[in-house]
């Protein structure tokens, strides 16, 4: 059901771990719905993402999208990182099954949450970044099969 790229990122996830004294940390999702993503960013003085790590509780798609999202923002500026949308993550993974699209939303949200945390710590405002939702699922309709 998953593409080869998803399987690759799931079985060999890139950038798993933590960053001590990270510039920004964002945690999104909730355990009730079965996925939580936490992203750590290390951002240098020029606003470039020097390093990124993640930890994820969730299904194969959640782990793979986290991994891909970290790859897509690594070495990028904050503005470039903001352009990494869930669509971009999905495309980079050669697509996701429709029931797993919400996992890619979580990845986008995790990047935003980590950047928001960075901006708050720095006391700056990042253009184009809104306060992330604390719970990715809170607006979502529950679907029954």
């Amino acid at each position, binding site marked *: 059901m998953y593409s080869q790229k998803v399987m690759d990122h799931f079985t060999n996830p890139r950038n798993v771990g933590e960053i001590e004294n990270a510039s920004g940390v964002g945690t999104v999702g909730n355990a009730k719905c*079965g996925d939580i*993503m936490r992203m750590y960013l290390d951002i240098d003085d020029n606003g470039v993402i020097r390093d990124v790590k993640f930890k994820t509780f969730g299904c194969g798609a959640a782990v793979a999208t986290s991994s891909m999202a970290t790859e897509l923002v690594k070495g990028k500026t904050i503005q470039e990182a903001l352009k990494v949308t869930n669509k971009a993550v999905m495309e980079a993974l050669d697509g996701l099954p429709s029931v797993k699209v919400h996992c890619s939303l979580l990845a986008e949200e995790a990047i935003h949450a980590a950047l928001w945390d960075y901006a708050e710590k720095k006391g700056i405002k990042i253009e184009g970044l809104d306060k992330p939702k604390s719970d990715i699922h809170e607006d979502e309709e529950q679907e029954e099969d």
Partner: protein
Amino acid sequence: MEKKIYLDNAATTKTRPEVVEAMLPYFTELYGNPSSIYEFSAQVKRGIDEARAKVAKVIGAESSEIFFTGGGTEADNWALKAVAEVYASKGNHIITSKIEHHAILHTCEYLEKNGVEVTYIDVDENGIIKLDQLERAIRPTTILISVMFANNEIGTIQPIKEIGAIAKKHDILFHTDAVQAFGQVPIDVNEMNIDMLSASAHKLNGPKGIGCLYIRKGIKLRSFIHGGGQERKRRAGTENVPGIIGFGKAAEIALETMEERARKEIRLRDLLMKRILDEIPFVRVNGDKVRRLPNNVNVSFQFIEGESLLIMLDMNNICASSGSACTSGSLDPSHVLLAIGLPHEIAHGSLRLTVGHENTEEEINFTVDRIKEIVEKLRRMSPLYEDFMKKKQ
């Protein structure tokens, strides 16, 4: 290990070679329509009669009380919908449990939309139905109690005899979905006061697409599928002859080997559970430890999610299943695990392993070794585990 390790026997089982062999002539030489008059078809009809007797014997029923269906789901649908319709003048209330299979629960939901009232009885933390609550739920309008014999996810076996006694005392029909129990544990419809029972062949090393509904003699139940006069006018449609023959053979073997199989499966089941509990921290067993199907192991690993675990097991050629939401595509984990009181995050981390008579101790040990590695790997990348360990320090 290159070989596939199949530990999902509650989902379906491999058809036994003896069963396939018994079925084969009914595809080729013995293809006559059992409803036809000539001797060529009478031979086929005799085959069906023998199969019916073999199926009946498993539950201590009469041959004439067995009606073949397209599977367990059809049998469940038939029992509930037909009782609701036929007994509408007596009442419109059905009692069932919260941990039934969707073949029952979704049928109940359908009936509720059509004016039937349904009470869903709670289960305790081991998945055993609350008998006092069940008896209190009975109303003058109650026409049916339907409680599964054994649960497909957690393997808990219900106090069926006690439920049967309650139903009899109040003169209410009692149906049980015995799809997981039929041919696996002893069942006696008379001793247990069971009025209707659903079974499915593919759970006992028989073919898919064939099952039956046992209907106690004297119970009026309308036909579910209308058409010809097959199955004594209760289930129209030309018989699935090879399926029926296969079901009969599988039932015969299941009954003959029940004790020996149960002994073997219990040994493998207990080895699996013991090693998992002994060697992996932060794990719990779901379901009753004693009143349990011989083949069922269901455990929850804290801090990890079930689908991830399943994919990694699959990469090791191990077939298993999980009550995680992600495996079904919905956001909620298994209704059974929630009903026994598990928090969502623990339910998401569940793993069901159901052994069969062909599994070996070597396979079980290999599987536990892989589970250990996978759980450790997934925990290393889990933010929940990180938080938990930090809190502990």
